[in-house]
């Protein structure tokens, strides 16, 4: 099956490539900066680079000097690689995603009590950016944090919180869910610390009495499940994603009338 002959008829999902104005033309636009001085050599360098990315017929539509020694490019071309769309499998957090207001209403209607969560950036990680993005009022990128949700009580313990302290707080406030944030990933420190947390939750006999979630720039739902968490939230996931999952999970587990951990 030659690609050119199918161009105007039907998409072959086993080998898709970008679409400009005709099927399989592979057209892409890319913008980037090279640390080289402005000039014809720079333009040629950009073309060769783009070819190496698998893009044929590169057309440098625009280039200019950003500052001495740096040149910016807008390039168009025809990308060659294809992807088998039919073989794609993305593990997803189950349930419907609702927005902040809908979450509040859903909880009032379906749970009938406040949902309690505790969150922290654990152990050596000093970064609060992740946990703040989810919990703090201000949220992140225009997505408000859990502090601004109705019928949600959220405790943000900040950063460098030992696993033991986070668990103790969850017990103290009868949390429905624990949110563990890990931002630093150098030498896979996040894997070690996330594993330590799971082990301690199990040792405390809490594993099925609390919803355990984690999040961070290098965390996917798939990784979280591998490590023994109920769900994981990576880039592009905000407070509403986290709460949508937690509230539906609370309902699924029948904890509506079990605000106390001891009763679950």
């Amino acid at each position, binding site marked *: 099956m030659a690609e050119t002959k199918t161009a105007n008829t039907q998409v072959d999902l086993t080998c898709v490539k970008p679409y400009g104005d005709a099927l399989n033309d592979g057209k892409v636009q890319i913008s980037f900066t090279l640390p080289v001085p402005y000039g014809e050599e720079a333009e040629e360098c950009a073309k060769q680079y783009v070819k190496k990315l698998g893009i044929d017929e590169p057309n440098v539509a625009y280039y200019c000097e950003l500052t001495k020694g740096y040149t910016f490019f807008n390039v168009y071309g025809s990308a060659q690689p294809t992807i088998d769309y039919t073989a794609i499998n993305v593990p997803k957090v189950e349930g419907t995603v609702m927005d902040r207001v809908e979450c509040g209403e859903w909880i009032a209607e379906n749970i009938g009590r406040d949902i309690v969560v505790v969150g922290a950036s654990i152990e050596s990680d000093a970064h*609060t950016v992740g946990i703040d993005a989810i919990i703090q009022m201000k949220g992140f990128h*225009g997505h408000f944090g859990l502090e601004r949700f109705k019928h949600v009580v959220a405790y943000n313990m900040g950063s460098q919180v030992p696993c033991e302290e986070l668990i103790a707080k969850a017990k103290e406030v009868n949390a429905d869910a624990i949110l563990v944030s890990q931002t630093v990933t150098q030498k896979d420190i996040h894997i070690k610390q996330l594993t330590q947390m799971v082990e301690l939750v199990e040792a405390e006999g809490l594993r099925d009495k609390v919803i355990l979630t984690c999040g961070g720039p290098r965390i996917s739902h798939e990784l979280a499940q591998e490590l023994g968490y109920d769900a994981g939230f990576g880039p592009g996931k905000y407070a509403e994603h986290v709460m949508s999952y937690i509230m539906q999970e609370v309902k699924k587990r029948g904890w509506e009338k079990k605000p106390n951990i001891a009763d679950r």
Partner: protein
Amino acid sequence: MKSKLNLDPKVVDSARQHAANIARDMQEFIDRHTTVSTERTIVRLLGVDGVDDVDTPLPNVVVDHIKEEGGLPTGAAYWMGNAIVQTGKAPQEIAEEIAAGKLEITKLATCSQEQAAEALMPYIKKTFEKIDMQKAKRQEYLNTIGEGKEPYIYVIVATGNIYEDVVQAQAAARQGADVIAVIRTTAQSLLDYVPYGATTEGFGGTYATQENFRIMRKALDEVGEEVGRYIRLCNYSSGMCMPEIAAMGALERLDVMLNDAIYGILFRDINMQRTLVDQFMSRVIIGYCGIIFNSGEDNYLTTDDAIESAHTVTASQFINEQFAVLANIPEEQMGLGHAFEMDPATEDGFLLELSQAQMAREIFPKARLKYMPPTKFMTGNIFRGHLQDALFNLVTVWTNQSILLTGMLTEAIHTPFMQDRYLSIENAQYIFNNCRHIGDEVEFKEGGIIQSRAQEVLAKADALLAEVEKDGLFATIEQGKFGGVKRPFDGGHGLEGVCTKGENYFNPFIKMFMDHE
């Protein structure tokens, strides 16, 4: 200036009077208290710098020591002055001896307050010489190489590595930036100490340290001479170390500093007593040093609706203005904040933004208004984002804003790349140049959307200020009237660092910084 919005000057005066009363009420509280950070600022201004063997900054060592011994109500100035009298040593040596455990300064024999103050004078004089030299240097640059036209183009650098920041900042200056802000690393605002030395690791920003200030200042002076324009340096006098960073900014010639207690209370959960006391010390420093402070009310619109809550921004600008008056800050150094944050799907939203920006300019005619770009409704669709920024730039030049926080098309994706800054600066320059005198040419329809909106927002701001005056600022914040965020009087970070002044307390710097002559 004739009001294009037909604002009633009586309403403006009324709002301003309420704000003045609010600020004066708060000042009575502030005058009765000090904080660990205020005391550390005094210690720094006496020339103490450096860290101990476990990297604790010496100003922290000194003030923690005084606090542990119960000496804080008397103030660090007295104890340092007394220690000079009793030991004959300089503040730096005294701090080092405390760090080494060789000296307990609250256990020395005590002199009178006058003697202690007298002993501090040579060190205070030395600090003022340094600060005055920096002020003179700035003036010399402005007189010789000059500066860019307003609106100043303000861009951020945020690599985490101060040396990489230098590369980015110099590139931005060559592309047309007038102000470079070095974004701080995440969570520095909650550290109760200022890190020390040059730093190369940060997350989402770079540590504010005195050495990093020095490195960037030097780089901007170099590039400023090259491009023939003084390049202003901005950092954050905010968070738990608000006044200490102001002092560092004074010594290293920063030109613009973010500085807003209410922002810290609402968005960083810093205790309100702590940060309002800290703010006063930082603002007297900022006022003296010719630094423009930027207030942060624009942030209310990231958590609250920009159309519904526009009046809270205006009300907060009035309050910040009056706090600045009490710290003797000239109007030209008041970088009151506001923002272009309405939902772009709003019909006539541009008219409402124009109205709000014009109103800020008319109410605060001499202020160095800081105008923040769209952030909340930037989505990752960089193409639409670039257009949103273009509309923002148009309002900016139309209403004579002073400082343009240049919107980046990649807002909501990453901290700016070099190319993002280029594209955004190009966008701003294109619109500023193409529409330079639009504000002089265009008037607004009497009783039309723009005029009516401004009158309505001003009236609501005046009413809110009347309420705040009645309830007090603390209670207002407890009720969540700003940014929709509630914070308790005794909650948040840093309350343990607040202390009631004792009978013999003194802070020699307040009076000297307040006297600009």
